[in-house]
C-alpha cells in the first residue's frame, strides 16, 4: 500500500528502514547476500551506517581502555622476556584502536568526536575492562581468555559486510593470535609453577570468570531488529553461540591445567552444548551503566590523558593542516 507514512514505533525493523529508497535498499541487500563488501562511498541505509559506527567505535574504545589494566603490569613484568612481550602486546592493542577509529572514520565520524564520546561516557567499551587487574596473574588471564573471547567475536565479524572493518579485523585477528599464545604461555607457566604462582593464577581465574561469562553479552532477544542486522551482516553470530564456542574451546584447556572454575553447573551436556549457571545480568547492567569497580577510574585516566595531551594536538593543528578522512 502506498502513501501510508505511518510506521509502528514498536516495529523496530520497520523503523530501521523508514525513509530508505526501496530500490536502493533492495540492491544493497542483494549485494550483501552475494557476499560483496560495502565500501565507504557506496550507498548504505542510515541505520546500517549508524550501527556500524556504534560497533566499530565501541571496539576501538575497548582497545584503548583495555590497554590500561594491562599497561599497569608492563612496569612490573617479571623478567626481560615477559616485559618485552607485554609491551609489544599492549602496543598492538593501541594500534588496533588506531585501525578501528580509521575504519569508523570512513563512515563519517571523526576520531576526535569518538574520543570525546568515550570520555564523556556517551559511548561504551567492553565491560570487562571495568574490573581491576589485581595481580600479575590477572594480566595473564586477561591476555589469554579475554583475548580468546575477542578473537571469537572478531573472527565472526571479519566475515561481515563492511569492507574497511573487515580488513581491519583481519589484521587485528592475526596479531591477537599471538596475544593468545602469549597469554596461554604465561598461564601455563604460573599453573605449573611454584605453589605461590598456582595460588595467584587460580585466584585470578576465579575473579575473572564472571566478567568472562558476561563478555559476549546477554542472550539475544529474538527480534526483527536482530534479524535485519544479521541480514546486513553487521551482526554475525548470536551472543549465546559465541559463548558456547568459547566454552567449548577453552574450558577443557583450563581444566587440563588443573585449574578450577567457580561454577558447579559447568559441564558439556548430551547435546554437545555447555550447561552453566546463568551469569548475573543485573550486575552486568549495573557495571555497563557506570557502577563497576573501575568505571570511574578508567574514564578519569583517559580524560586526564586527553586533557594533558591537548596542547600537543593544538600545536599540530596549524593553519596548513586540514582534516582528511581515511579512505578505508
Amino acid at each position, binding site marked *: 500500500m502506498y502513501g501510508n507514512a505511518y510506521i509502528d514505533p514498536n516495529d523496530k525493523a520497520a523503523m530501521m528502514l523508514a525513509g530508505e529508497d526501496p530500490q536502493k535498499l533492495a540492491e544493497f541487500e542483494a549485494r550483501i547476500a552475494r557476499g560483496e563488501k560495502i565500501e565507504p562511498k557506496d550507498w548504505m541505509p542510515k541505520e546500517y551506517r549508524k550501527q556500524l559506527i556504534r560497533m566499530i567505535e565501541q571496539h576501538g574504545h575497548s582497545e*584503548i581502555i583495555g*590497554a*590500561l589494566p594491562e*599497561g599497569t*603490569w*608492563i*612496569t*612490573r*613484568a*617479571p*623478567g*626481560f622476556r*615477559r*616485559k*618485552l612481550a607485554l*609491551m*609489544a602486546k*599492549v*602496543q598492538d592493542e*593501541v*594500534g588496533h*584502536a*588506531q585501525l578501528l*577509529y580509521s575504519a569508523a572514520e570512513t563512515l563519517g565520524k571523526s576520531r576526535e568526536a569518538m574520543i570525546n564520546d568515550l570520555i564523556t561516557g556517551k559511548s561504551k567499551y567492553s565491560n570487562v575492562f571495568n574490573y581491576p587487574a589485581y595481580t*600479575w596473574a590477572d594480566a595473564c588471564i586477561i591476555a589469554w581468555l579475554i583475548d580468546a573471547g575477542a578473537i571469537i567475536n572478531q573472527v565472526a565479524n571479519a566475515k561481515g559486510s563492511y569492507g574497511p572493518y573487515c580488513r581491519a579485523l583481519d589484521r587485528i585477528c592475526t596479531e591477537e593470535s599471538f596475544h593468545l599464545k602469549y597469554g596461554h604461555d604465561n598461564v601455563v*607457566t604460573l599453573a605449573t*609453577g*611454584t605453589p*605461590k*604462582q598456582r595460588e595467584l593464577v587460580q585466584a585470578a581465574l576465579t575473579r575473572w570468570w564472571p566478567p568472562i561469562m558476561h563478555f559476549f553479552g546477554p542472550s539475544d532477544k529474538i527480534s526483527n531488529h536482530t534479524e535485519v542486522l544479521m541480514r546486513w551482516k553487521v551482526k554475525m553470530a548470536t551472543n549465546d553461540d559465541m559463548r558456547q564456542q568459547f566454552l567449548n574451546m577453552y574450558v577443557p584447556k583450563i581444566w587440563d591445567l588443573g585449574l578450577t572454575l567457580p561454577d558447579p553447573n559447568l559441564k558439556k551436556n548430551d547435546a554437545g552444548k555447555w550447561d552453566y549457571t546463568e551469569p548475573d545480568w543485573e550486575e552486568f547492567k549495573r557495571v555497563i551503566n557506570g557502577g563497576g569497580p573501575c568505571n570511574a577510574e578508567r574514564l578519569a*585516566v583517559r580524560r586526564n*590523558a586527553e586533557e*594533558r*595531551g*591537548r*596542547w*600537543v*594536538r*593544538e*600545536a*599540530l593543528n*596549524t593553519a596548513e593542516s586540514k582534516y582528511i578522512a581515511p579512505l578505508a
Partner: protein
Amino acid sequence: MNTEAIKELLYKMADDLLIIGHRNSEWTGLGPILEEDISFSSMAQDKIGQSQALYVLLHELGEQEPDTVAFTRNANQFHNAQLLELPNGEYDFSLIRHFLYDHADQLRFEALANSSYEPLAKVARKVKGELKYHVFHANTWVTKLGSANAESHARMQAALNHAWNYALGMFEHSTHEDILIAENIFIGEDSLQDKWLSNISAVLLKAGLSIPSSDTWNPVLGGRKGLHTEHLGPLVEEMSEVFRYDPTAEW
C-alpha cells in the same frame, strides 16, 4: 683488555637504557595522540632490548644473569644518569629528555661500533641502526613543537631548561676514562659531549629553542656512582615487584 673498565662502561649504558625504556613504557595508553603512544612504546621495546643485549655482555664477563641483574638490584646499585630516572612529567619533558638522551646515545653507539672490544662493537653496529629512528622521531617532534605556537614553545623551552643540567650529567667521567681511551675501547665522555652539543645545537636552532647560557651549566653528577634522586627507588621497586614475589620461581 681492562675488564673492570669495560664492565663499568657496560653497566652505565645498560642501566641508562633499562631505566629510560621503563619510563618510555609508562606512556602506554596515555599518549597525547595514539600515534605517539605507539611510538613511545616502540622506543621502549628497543631500549629494553638493547639493555638486555648489554647485560648479556656483562654476563659473559662473569656478572649474574641479565634478569637477576636487572630485577634484583637496589636503586643504589644502578649506574644510570639521573636524567633518565626523573618522572615522565608532561609530554614536553619526556620529549626533550628523549631528544637529549637519544642524540648522546646515537653518538655513543656510533663511536662504539669501532671499539677495540669486539663483542661491544658488534652490538653497537646493530643498535645504532635502531637509534637512527629514535633520533629522527625526536628531531621531528622537537622541531614541530618548539615553534608551533606560543604555548608549545614556552613548554618546550621550560622543559629544556629543566632537563639541561641533568643532561650534562650523562657525561660524568668514568674512573677508568683514560684506560678506555688509551685502549681504543671508547672515545671518552668529553669527546662525546662535544659532538653531542654540536648535533643538538643545530636542531634546537631550527626548533627556535635556546640552550641555557653556559654560565648556568652545572652538571648533575653521581648517577654513575649509584647516587640517585628519590625517584629511582620507587621505580626499581615497581619493576621488581613480581620478580621478587617468588624468587624461586620461573616467570
